[in-house]
């Protein structure tokens, strides 16, 4: 169920230039699933809208939620300045999350690019033991700062790609996919739009299922404002036009259903 709640920051550190890792003590940790997100409210009177940040990891026992986000504007800059012990206002839990059941007994490939890497972590954790063989994880980075790589490696076989070639395969996750000629029955992915388009194209060609986690500017985060929509192949049941709400019907969509 969606609600406003106040969490307490447990820890905060910069794990790569401009990439911040925040653990928050919040009851939302118990219901938060891989691929879902929370709206985080800045305190400044000049920035009123909640910032959508996806679940990176949850510790259900401790009731702790991990958010790994990029410092991109006034809001995230403010979050980055928050210290352990401070309170933070949250809206959530939001979105549909990744369909775990689609991985049952299948060969699974997880692909994350840039700030799309964090949601892959909780997904890899949740899939552990449910898939056919070990999960393969492709993580794409700008440079050698492979944030979350160690965490990911714990839950699957990690293949890195870096744009500058400093670590792993030079190029993006698609290059790494080819380099390691990995095979899969289903792909789960999150990352920049060009990467998602490439994955969608690859999956269509290979005739395999792919689930994409999409991003878009949001206002309400709960499906009321219709700010964050994606063009869909079929008429969407809510809008009755070819537009699904990323915050509500998404952020995770079957690649075949969306036109990106």
């Amino acid at each position, binding site marked *: 169920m969606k609600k406003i709640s106040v969490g307490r920051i447990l820890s905060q550190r910069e794990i790569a230039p401009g990439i911040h890792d925040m653990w928050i003590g919040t009851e939302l940790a118990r219901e938060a699933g891989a691929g879902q997100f929370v709206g985080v*409210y800045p305190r400044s009177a000049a920035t009123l809208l909640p910032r959508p940040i996806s679940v990176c990891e949850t510790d259900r026992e401790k009731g702790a939620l991990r958010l790994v986000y990029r410092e991109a504007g006034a809001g995230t800059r403010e979050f980055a300045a928050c210290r352990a012990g401070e309170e933070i206002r949250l809206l959530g839990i939001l979105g549909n999350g990744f369909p775990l059941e689609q991985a049952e007994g299948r060969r699974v490939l997880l692909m994350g690019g840039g700030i799309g890497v964090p949601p892959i972590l909780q997904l890899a954790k949740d899939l552990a033991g449910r898939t056919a063989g070990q999960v393969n994880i492709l993580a794409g980075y700008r440079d050698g700062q492979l944030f979350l790589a160690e965490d990911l490696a714990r839950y699957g076989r990690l293949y890195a790609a870096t744009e500058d070639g400093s670590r792993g395969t030079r190029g993006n996750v698609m290059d790494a996919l080819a380099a390691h000629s990995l095979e899969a029955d289903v792909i789960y992915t999150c990352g920049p739009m060009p990467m998602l388009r490439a994955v969608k194209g690859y999956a269509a060609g290979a005739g395999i299922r792919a689930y994409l986690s999409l991003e878009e500017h949001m*206002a309400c985060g*709960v499906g*009321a404002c219709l700010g964050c929509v994606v063009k869909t192949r079929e008429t969407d049941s809510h809008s009755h036009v070819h537009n699904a709400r990323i915050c509500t019907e998404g952020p995770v969509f079957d690649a075949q259903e969306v036109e990106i």
Partner: protein
Amino acid sequence: MKTEVTIAGVTLKNPVMTASGTFGSGMEYSEFVDLNRLGAVVTKGVANVPWPGNPTPRVAEVYGGMLNAIGLQNPGIDVFLERDLPFLRRFDTRVIVNVCGRTVEDYLEVAERLGEAQGVDMLEINVSCPNVKEGAIAFGQKPEALYDITSRIKRTARQPIIMKLSPNVTDIAEMARAAEAAGADALSLINTITGMKIDIYKRKFALANKTGGMSGPAIKPVAVRMVYQAAHAVKIPVIGMGGIANGEDAVEFLLAGATAVSVGAMNFANPHATLEVLQGIEAYMERCGVEDVRELIGAVEE
């Protein structure tokens, strides 16, 4: 403590409503707010057929507010009558349906359909959406055009009609008088103020539509001024909105001449905003010994 207000013969249990387009058709926010406590729910704009709206990005944040260029995406009157209206009728609140169109005929078709429907208390006519090319705003920026569409809709509508005015005009009083002269039962204002944001590092417009409608606390002083000017130009009731975040903001609009108020963009910043506004009004009345909220309407000292 009396909080009832009456608009065009329709009595609201309190003056707090929702601003069209910020509250869907009530369903989404019913998880946060007991709709039974609201004076009225104003729906997202409904057209004669489904509208796809504008390309994304559709929203952008600005200092103390936001810009939107949704483009009135909506599922159309059929779905509204089958799905949204029955949902709203389950609650003890007034239902005001916002009507949009590209041509006068579009508006008339929706008004006719709603006239046959049960449980629609009033129609709010959106002639001021800055984000759709045809229709809409064109009707809302010239007094003659506003007079024409208002009188034609009034002849068709079975329920009282509220004309929603655009702030993007030289003389809001002139627009208010035109709508009143054409038979409008009430006015609501302000709709959003046209704004623009540019991403200076990408050198691109923040919105695919280039311009968008600005809302939020940043625009409140402009809204209060226009509500005051409109309320003093006409005899019909005025519904005030524009950046209302709390009870004190709402009281400011009432004192300026509004009979009721709508909470818009602040629902996004605080899903409980509508109820907090209501509680804030009641707290103000308590503190200042106001027995009946109607004492506040237009009560600013001249």
